[in-house]
């Protein structure tokens, strides 16, 4: 099965770069927690700000972990190493290749998210992370892995992926209900941001963490993003005239 082949390739990469991947997944989120949560101690909605912040940081770490695991890697394979050519030439069905990338990227996202959950455990905030949390993290990772696949396919140079990260991923990381509630964003922009995948993920993970009911609509929204981005990736692989 082609999916297993891609996962094997991801595993080889993970095993080799274990320390680099793990450290990279830890540094930025830990800084956010230290600076915004522990350095600037505030109260949000009558609770310690960390209770608000940590679910948001877990969501954005999942996003970054998944996107970065796929976008840059695939971009290098396609434009620089040309290793992607061998995949195209091979009899591995291309849908299996994409599915493998999505699953592999999601798992990397979950791994990055889990590191943060483990690191904040000693703080003793009594946040709840259950099966639903991990399902949502997986879905969020799947959305951003697929976005990574699409961006790497449509990129024309090595600099396009970092540029996309700067213009899209980074603003999302700050604005999508991660560090502050999207309710305080001006009307108009607020509605747009609310329907972005990271806003939905942050919101759902936060509700679960605080043992409050969450809206299943968020899962539907993530599924719609996943479907649209997957269609774009397929379109590229099967229809693009020159790879």
């Amino acid at each position, binding site marked *: 099965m082609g999916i297993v*082949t891609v996962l094997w*390739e991801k595993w080889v990469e993970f095993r080799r770069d274990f320390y680099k991947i793990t450290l990279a997944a830890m540094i930025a989120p830990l800084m956010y927690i230290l600076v915004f949560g522990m350095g600037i101690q505030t109260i949000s909605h009558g609770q310690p700000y960390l209770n608000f912040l940590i679910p948001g940081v877990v969501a954005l770490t999942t996003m970054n972990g998944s996107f970065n695991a796929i976008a840059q890697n695939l971009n290098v394979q396609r434009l620089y*190493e*040309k*290793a992607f050519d*061998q995949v*195209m030439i091979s*009899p591995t*069905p291309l849908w299996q290749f994409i599915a493998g990338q999505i699953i592999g990227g999601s798992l990397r996202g979950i791994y990055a998210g889990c590191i943060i959950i483990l690191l904040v455990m000693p703080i003793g905030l009594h946040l709840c992370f259950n099966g639903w949390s991990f399902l949502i993290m997986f879905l969020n990772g799947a959305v951003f892995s697929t976005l990574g696949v699409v961006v790497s396919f449509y990129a024309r140079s090595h600099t396009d992926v970092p540029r996309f990260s700067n213009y899209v991923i980074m603003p999302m990381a700050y604005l999508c209900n991660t560090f502050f509630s999207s309710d305080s964003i001006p009307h108009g922009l607020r509605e747009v941001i609310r329907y972005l995948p990271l806003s939905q993920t942050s919101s759902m993970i936060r509700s679960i963490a605080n043992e409050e009911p969450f809206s299943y609509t968020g899962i539907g929204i993530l599924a719609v993003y996943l479907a649209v981005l997957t269609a774009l990736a397929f379109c590229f692989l099967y229809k693009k005239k020159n*790879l």
Partner: protein
Amino acid sequence: MIELKNLTKKYDEFTAVDNLNLTIDTGGFFGLLGPNGAGKSTTIGMLSTLYLPTEGEILIDGERLTRQNTALKRKISVVTQEYSMRQDMTIEEIMEYQGRLYFVPKKQRRKKTRELLEFCGLTDYRRRTVRKLSGGMKRKLMVCRALLTEPEILLLDEPTAGMDALARRQMWNLLKRLNRNHMTILLTTHYMEEAEILCDRVGLMDRGRLKEADAPRVMIERLGRYAVDQAEKEEMRSLFFRTQEEAVRYIAGLKGDAALRNTTLEDVFLEKVGKYLENRR
């Protein structure tokens, strides 16, 4: 059998391959020759489904080759002109990955990997990453990788570029052996000697068009089996003759220096394509 029917590839206004019609029989060894930009690599690119044809089609054993046709793709292996491998993987991992991509059973891919690496002298380097290999070793690895899947059709785009003389000879012997075992091989090369030694048919391409396709021997016969190289002012000129007697008679009537030799495929290439290129300059 590989059939290219009215195959055309355009990049905006530029036509890289223009209405190419070609048949390569099963078990044949076909060489595609041409200057840089003739359309050889684009043809290989279409055969490996990296590029989709603008017009025309490719049939393999009567079946249309598409990106979705995984059963047909299983029959084909490609050695691309550029090194197309993950730089951070070891030789063993590259082979394992290839085997998995082609669904080669575990036992078979391990056994075949051992054999191929041994044959190409790469066994001692199997745990070395691609990044740390020399150009020749990378080229050998790409061939090993292509052969791991035991393809029926092997496409080679400049396979011996960057190899030393010994490695090139070893490669030729390997390709000849594979062809004897009924593997269909399509090769593009800049080395005329390589094509003459290996291929049972060659095609001369220029500006996307196939100018001529035949057995090297027939092409040479058609031009004249004997060549006379004649120094003319500052340039060397070659003339071709059907018989040795004709060539000798011609030399006898010359005042300056001249040398008699057998005509090669390079002469055919230079006559058919080279002269045109010279005029174009």
